[in-house]
C-alpha cells in the first residue's frame, strides 16, 4: 500500500529502464501519441482475436470497439468537467443523457410517424440543440438546491433524480399525458425510434439499403462488397466514427481551454478547497451551477451522439444507473482531472473491460470441446473442471462485471489517481511542486 501511494511512483520522472519503457515514456509525454498507441494496442489485440474469421469480422470488431471507445470518451470528458475539475460527485449521468436523447427524439420525430410516438418534426440540428438545452436545464434544476449538500448527499440526489427521470420516461401515464397536452410522446416502456443518422444519408440515398449515393458507390466499390468485401453497414459505421472523432476533439479542446481559463482555475480551486475559493471572493455557488449546466449539456450531447445514432432507445435498460457507473469507472481509470486521461479511460474501459471480455470469452468457448452445463449448480455438481470452464466462458457477462468491480476496487486501493492521475492540474497557474535538481522526496 504505502509504496504504491508514495509520490515517487509516478512514471514520468523516472529514467526508462528498457526500450519499451522508453517508448511508453515518450508516448506519455505526447497526448496524441498516447491515445494512438493505446488504440493501436487495442486494434492489435482485436485483430489477433478475430483475424481467422476474415477481414469483415476484423473491421467490424474494430468498428464496435472504436465506436464504444469514442462515445465513452465523450461521456467521460463531460463527467470529468464535473468530477475531475470541480469535484461535483454527479452520479446521475444516465438521467441527463436520457433527457438529451429523448428531447432530441421528440423535437425531430415526425408529427405523424408510421409507428411510435409523434414528435414536432423539426430539423435535426434544432433537436440536438434542444436536447443539450433541456439537459442543461435539468442540470440547473438539480444544481440550484443541491450544490450546498455534502458530496455524498449530492451523489444520492443526482442518482435519485436520474431514476425519477428514467421512471418518468418509462411511464405510459406520462406518455399519454404528453400526447394529450403537447401532441408528442415518449413511447413509454417500448421506447422511441431515433431519427435517421445523417451519416447514413451521405452513403445511401434517403438511407435506403441498395441505393448508394456517389460517395457511397465509390466507398462501397473499393472497400465494400464490390471490393475488399467489408459489409456496407460497417463502412457506414466507420463514417460515423469519423464524426464522433471530430466531436471528441471538439470536447477535448473545449474542456482544455475551459480548464486553462481563469474560470477553470476557479473550478480547480473549488475542487481543492471550497472554503478558500469562497473566502477569496469567488461566487462558488454561481460557478458550480454554471459548470454543472455546461457539463449536463455535454452529457446530453454525448447521449445524443451515442444512443441517438442507434435506431431505438428505451429507458430500461439503456438509461439505468449502471450506465453512470460505467462512465465513472472510465473517469477513474483515466484519472479524474485529466482530459487526456478521460479520453484514454473511455477507450480502455470500452475495449478492455466492456467489450473485450465477452469477445475473449466467446473465442475461449470455441476452443473448449464440451457441452455447456445449463446452470452453475449442474457445473459444480458434475465436478468436472472442463464443464465449469465451459459454463464460465459461456456466461462471461456476469464475470465481466465481477472483473469490472475488482478493477475499480484495485484502482481505489493501489492507484486512486488512475492511469494519468499524476497529471491532475492544480489550481495554481505555475507548478508548485517543481524542485531543483530532481531530488527524490523520501
Amino acid at each position, binding site marked *: 500500500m504505502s509504496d504504491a501511494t508514495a509520490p515517487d511512483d509516478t512514471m514520468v520522472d523516472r529514467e526508462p529502464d528498457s526500450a519499451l519503457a522508453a517508448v511508453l515514456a515518450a508516448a506519455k509525454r505526447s497526448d496524441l501519441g498516447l491515445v494512438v498507441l493505446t488504440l493501436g494496442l487495442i486494434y492489435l489485440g482485436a485483430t489477433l482475436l478475430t483475424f481467422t474469421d476474415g477481414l469483415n469480422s476484423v473491421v467490424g470488431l474494430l468498428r464496435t470497439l472504436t465506436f464504444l471507445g469514442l462515445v465513452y470518451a465523450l461521456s467521460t470528458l463531460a463527467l470529468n468537467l464535473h468530477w475531475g475539475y470541480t469535484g461535483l460527485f454527479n452520479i446521475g449521468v444516465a438521467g441527463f443523457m436520457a433527457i438529451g436523447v429523448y428531447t432530441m427524439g421528440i423535437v425531430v420525430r415526425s408529427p405523424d410517424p408510421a409507428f411510435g410516438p409523434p414528435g414536432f418534426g423539426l430539423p435535426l440540428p434544432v433537436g440536438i440543440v434542444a436536447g443539450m438545452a433541456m439537459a442543461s436545464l435539468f442540470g440547473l434544476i438539480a444544481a440550484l438546491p443541491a450544490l450546498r449538500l455534502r458530496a455524498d448527499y449530492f451523489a444520492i440526489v443526482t442518482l435519485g433524480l436520474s431514476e425519477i427521470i428514467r421512471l418518468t420516461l418509462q411511464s405510459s401515464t406520462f406518455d399519454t399525458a404528453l400526447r394529450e397536452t403537447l401532441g408528442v410522446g415518449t413511447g413509454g416502456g417500448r421506447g422511441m425510434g431515433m431519427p435517421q443518422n445523417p451519416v447514413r444519408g451521405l452513403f445511401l440515398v434517403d438511407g435506403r439499403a441498395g441505393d448508394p449515393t456517389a460517395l457511397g458507390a465509390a466507398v462501397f466499390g473499393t472497400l465494400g462488397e464490390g471490393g475488399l468485401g467489408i459489409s456496407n453497414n460497417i463502412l457506414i459505421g466507420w463514417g460515423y466514427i469519423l464524426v464522433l472523432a471530430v466531436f471528441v476533439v471538439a470536447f477535448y479542446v473545449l474542456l482544455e481551454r475551459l480548464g486553462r481559463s481563469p474560470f477553470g482555475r476557479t473550478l480547480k480551486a473549488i475542487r481543492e478547497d471550497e472554503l478558500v475559493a469562497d473566502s477569496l471572493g469567488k461566487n462558488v455557488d454561481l460557478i458550480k451551477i454554471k459548470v454543472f449546466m455546461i457539463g449536463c449539456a455535454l452529457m446530453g450531447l454525448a447521449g445524443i451522439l451515442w444512443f441517438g445514432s442507434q435506431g431505438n432507445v428505451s429507458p430500461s435498460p439503456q438509461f439505468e444507473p449502471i450506465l453512470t457507473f460505467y462512465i465513472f469507472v472510465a473517469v477513474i481509470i483515466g484519472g479524474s482531472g485529466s482530459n487526456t486521461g478521460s479520453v484514454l479511460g473511455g477507450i480502455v474501459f470500452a475495449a478492455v473491460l466492456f467489450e473485450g471480455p465477452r469477445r475473449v470469452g466467446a473465442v475461449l468457448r470455441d476452443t473448449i470441446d464440451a457441452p455447456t452445463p445449463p446452470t452453475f*449448480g449442474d457445473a459444480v455438481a458434475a465436478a468436472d473442471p472442463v464443464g465449469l470452464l465451459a459454463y464460465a466462458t459461456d456466461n462471461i457477462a*456476469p*464475470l465481466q462485471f465481477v472483473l469490472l468491480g475488482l478493477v475499480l*476496487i484495485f484502482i481505489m486501493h493501489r492507484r486512486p489517481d488512475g492511469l494519468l492521475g499524476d497529471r491532475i492540474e492544480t489550481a495554481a497557474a505555475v507548478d508548485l511542486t517543481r524542485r531543483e535538481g530532481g531530488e527524490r522526496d523520501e
Partner: protein
Amino acid sequence: MESIELLSPAALREHPGLAVVAAIGLLLCVDLLAKLAGLQVGPLGGSLSVARLGSNLWNGLVIGLVIGLAGIGLSMTYSILNFANFSHGDLVSTGAFTGWGVAFVVAAAGSQPLGALVTVRDAGDVTPGAIGAHVLSTPGAIVVGLLAAFAITAVVSLAIDRAFYKPMRDRGGIALLITSVGVALVVRYLIQFAYGADRRGITASVDGDTLATPLGVSVTAHQLTIAVAAIGLMVAMHYTLQRTKLGTAMRAMADNKDLALITGIPAERVVAATWILGGGLAGASGYLYVLLRGTIQFDFGWSLLLLIFAAVILGGIGSIYGAIAGGLVIGLVFTTSTVWISSDFNAAAAFAVMILVLLLRPEGLFGGVSTA
C-alpha cells in the same frame, strides 16, 4: 420534540420550503379525507374505499418494516465507517439467495434433488409448489432460512470488509463510496453467475393463507410473519445497542470516533460488530422481502438500494430508530401515493420525498440523533 417545533409558525417562516411542503401535505390529507367521505369539492375529493386505503397502509407498513430493517445496517455503516455503502443492496440479495437455499433444503431435502434446492431453483426442474415453502406448511424451514440469511450475510459482510475496506480505513468517504460500487458489482454478478439471471417464484401457495380481513384488508400469513420477524429483530437490535457494552461502544464510535478511540474502545472489534449486525440485518431483510413478494431475482437488492437510502436519509443518517421510521414513511409513500398518482410513479414519489428531505432538512426528519 423537535418534530413538533418544526411545524411552529416561526420555524415555517424561517424555512419557506418546509412551509410549501407542509401546505402540500395538509392539502393531500384534506383530499384524502374528502375522498374517504366520498365528497367532491372542486379538484379535491373523489371516492376511495376504506378497504383500499387500509390495504395500501397495511402493505406500506409491511414493506416499510423490511426497508427499515435493511436501513439499520446502512445507517450503522454510514455513521460508524463514514461512507455511503452502495453494496448494501447486494448484501440484501446475498441474504435472500443463501437464506432461501437453506430454507428450501430444510423444507424438501428428502423429496427433491439437492442441487435444485441449494441453487434456489436455478438447477433442475422443480416447481415452488413441489418444494412447498410456506410459513403455514413449513414454519421450521422458514425460520431456519431466516437465521441462515442473517448468519451467512454477516460472514460475507465481514469477509468483504477484511478484503476490500480494511486496507482503506484511513481514506475519505468518497473513496470508500467508489470502492463500494466496485464491491456491489462483484457481489451482484457473482450472485448472477452462481444462481442465474432469471426471476423465479419462491413461495408455494397454501389454502387459508389469508388469516384475517379487518375492515376488508386482507392480512396474509407471510405479511404477519414479516411484521413479527422484522419487529423482533428491531427490538433485539435496540437491546444490543442500548444494554450491551458492545452496543455502547458502537454508539460511542458513531457519535465521536476520536473520543471513542481515546477512551480505549477497540475500534476494529466495533467495526467487525457493525458489519456482522448491519450485514446480518440486510440479509434477513432480503430474505423477508422475498417472502413478501414470492419471487427472487439476482439484482432485486440493487433496485431496492435507493429506497433504503431514502429511508436512512429520511430518518437521519446514523440513527437506527430514524432508519426504521424512515423505512415506514418510505413504505407508506410507496403504496399510498397510488391514491393520487399512477403506480408508474410510486418509486419516483419515494425518491422525490428523499430528495426533498435532503434539500430541506439534510439532518433527517428526526434531527440527526446519532444511533441513540
